């Protein structure tokens, strides 16, 4: 298993390098010059000023040289400097990482637990009202755009009944500490985490249900039943476990994209995470920051892919690690 992990890490580094180079060029293909954006914001744009900014950004150097400088930096874990935000990129990302992880991991847990539970119920009671109800519920959340669900949530829970705060990570100016602070953050977390979680939940519900119905028809389930095992044991140990493989695959893919995938949720709820940092960096053509976020996301995808492979083995012992 160790050699498997080692091999995957080496492959991961190669993939990462390819991602960096590709993104480096892709970003520069987008029209819009960061120096002009900044000059525009300054309400002035004389030639000297724009040229000064280009020099500051290092944009006056030839593109291959810019790439070399950037890759060299990454090799020493230096993600560069954001001139727009006047701070090292790594620091900017690190500041936002905890909020993003809190939101996305909570949403991920909600979606996975609820999705698998609902999917299992739906499969168990396939064709009944319960199944139809769950399927419709899941479809509704899958079909509705996240920003719409978010705004409706705000309208209902913040404006109409005033149970939950509409924006932010904590109550600004309350200066709470200890348990009170935890409760405060949790209150702020509920709506964004549910909004994001319910969307993904729908996918897991549908997938678990379909996968379980498929597995249920297989011979080994009949055998188990013939052996006289109880229905609950068959569902849990034989059907669900075998049905989970595609769900794990999907969850692995989702988990990797969680870091950057919450742009809309973070924007509507003013959640101070990386998704928004990335969005702002994109609009401002803050190349270094944008690349830094991409690199971070890529690393997360690679890590979660590795974890997925390891979880496969736990779910299905027949899968071997091919070194």
């Amino acid at each position, binding site marked *: 298993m160790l050699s498997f992990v080692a091999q995957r890490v080496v492959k991961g580094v190669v993939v990462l390098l390819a991602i960096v180079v590709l993104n480096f060029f892709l970003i520069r293909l987008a029209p819009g010059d960061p120096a002009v954006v900044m000059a525009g914001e300054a309400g*002035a744009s004389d030639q*000297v000023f724009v040229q000064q900014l280009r020099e500051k950004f290092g944009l006056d150097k030839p593109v291959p040289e810019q790439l070399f400088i950037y890759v060299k930096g990454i090799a020493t874990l230096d993600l560069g400097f954001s001139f*727009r935000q006047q701070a090292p990129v790594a620091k900017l990302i690190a500041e*936002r990482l905890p909020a993003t992880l809190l939101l996305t991991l909570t949403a991920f847990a909600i979606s996975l637990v609820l999705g698998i539970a609902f999917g299992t119920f739906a499969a168990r009671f396939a064709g009944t009202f319960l199944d139809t109800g769950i399927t419709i519920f899941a479809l509704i959340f899958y079909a509705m755009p996240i920003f719409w669900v978010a705004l409706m949530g705000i309208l209902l829970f913040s404006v109409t009944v005033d149970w939950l705060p*509409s*924006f932010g990570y904590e109550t600004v*100016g309350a200066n709470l500490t200890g348990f009170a602070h935890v409760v405060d953050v949790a209150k702020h977390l509920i709506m964004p985490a549910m909004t994001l979680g319910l969307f993904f939940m729908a996918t897991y519900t549908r997938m678990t249900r379909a996968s379980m119905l498929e597995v249920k028809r297989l011979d080994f389930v009949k055998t188990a039943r013939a052996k006289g095992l109880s229905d609950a044991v068959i569902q849990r140990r034989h059907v669900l476990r075998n049905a989970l493989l595609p769900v794990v695959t999907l969850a692995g893919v989702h988990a990797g994209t969680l870091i950057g995938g919450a742009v809309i949720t973070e924007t509507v709820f003013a959640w101070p995470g990386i998704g928004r*940092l990335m969005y702002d960096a994109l609009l401002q053509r803050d190349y270094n920051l944008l690349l830094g976020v991409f690199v971070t996301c890529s690393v997360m995808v690679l890590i979660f892919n590795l974890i997925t492979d390891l979880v496969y083995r736990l779910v299905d012992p027949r899968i071997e690690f091919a070194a």
Partner: protein
Amino acid sequence: MSKRVLLGLLLACGLSASALAQEPKTGGVINAVIQPEPPGLMLAMIQNGPTQMVSGNIFEGLLRYSPKLEPLPELAESWTVSEDAKTYTFKLRKGVTWHDGKPFTAADVLFSMEMLKQTHARARTNLAQVDKIEAPDDYTVVFTLKQPFGPFLGIFEVGSMPIVPKHLYEGTDWKTNPYNNAPVGTGPFMFKEWQKGSFIRLVKNPNYYEKGKPYIDEIYWQIIPDAAARSVAYETGKVDVLPGGSVENFDVPRLSKLKDTCVTGAGWEFFSPLAWLWLNNRQGPLADKRVRQAIMYAVDRDFAKDVIWNGLGKVATGPSSSAIKYYTDDVKKYPYDPAKAKALLKEAGYKGEKIRLLPLAYGETWQRWGEAVKQNLTDVGMNIETISTDVAGGNQKIGDWDYDIAFTYLYQYGDPALGVGRNYISSNIAKGQVFNNVEGYSNPEIDKLFADGAIATPDSKRKEIYDKAQKILVEDVPVAWMLELQFPTIMRCKVKNLITTGIGVNDGFKDAWLDK
């Protein structure tokens, strides 16, 4: 040398007289929205709108400006101008300290000017008129100009000319100086905390030189990126102040009707944002003056004002906003007249060539305006294709002259020499840059008028020159002027004296107090 003394102090007293009608109360916290999140707070190095809105509380300029744009004292307590209008002597306020306790002196002003020349594009352009700056003593600064420059007293507001602490910046690498992230100024509020993506917290400067001020204990600038969520934050009482432009315009009437809500359009006199359509004068049908005039007649600007901007603002009559100096409305008029537009297009021989229209990617209001203008132009027979981009992509296209019609709005900074001429003089035609003369209009007479206007004395002479320039421009229609924009500030009525100068919310909350 006889001196003309401007009694700024008297003006300041007049200003606070209205405040005294009700005795200000001390204490309390103001929660305001800041949109978008500023990239940094070091005003001398970053000059975008949100940076000034927050940092205008931390830093100060030598002067402020009344709603009528008369200079008021800030770090300079008085000033004199020599008879030849080339020497400006500022007497600085004594007893002012930086937030770290060090005294503020003329050396800080001299250092700031040197720094701004390198980091602040607008300041550099303005300071290009200056031959030398000297400090005969710790509390006197003398600017000697190369030639008289009419708007010189109008360039010292905090956003245009912030004064920075020499002792913290001299000899350091400015761009990585740690004080960029924890700025130290002389202003009424001190930087305390910035939770990126959440809020910026400023606290009262207990040693502020104006006794009793500021009245407010703390300001929280809340960062809420979604426009609808900003409206909700106000509705649910989480924020007290929505500075101009922080909610979509179509939400303004609804929010204005909320209980205990006050709305004001004041505080934009210095900036005077004017919206227009860039018209690419170089190529295609728009090279013909008659087509450009047709556009002026074809666009229903009253509709834009009444429906898209909810009745806020004013229909523009020409290149100058009515709030700035030397404005005249004695120019050719362009009422909404589709028939006349059609006739002019026919006369110009327009045959339905495709014309690309770039709306401004500043949110829903601007998008709607883009659609309305497209409709107006299509109605008179123009073949309009809308090109959608984000702000950076749009700027690139405009800077590269790769457009036919494009929306914009720009500040005018109180004087035609500062904020109007730049868009029409031919020396400002330079590819790759936005916000100068990107329409490519070139008229030697206009060049000369703006060059003369900046240095002419006395005022009556300047007025004569700018009257003429406005007449010529309005006849030529190098760009199609739309509206003098008004960005209303929405706030709880308990917030008093929030806006006391022509710079408005961007000038800091030093006069503001809470009636509770």
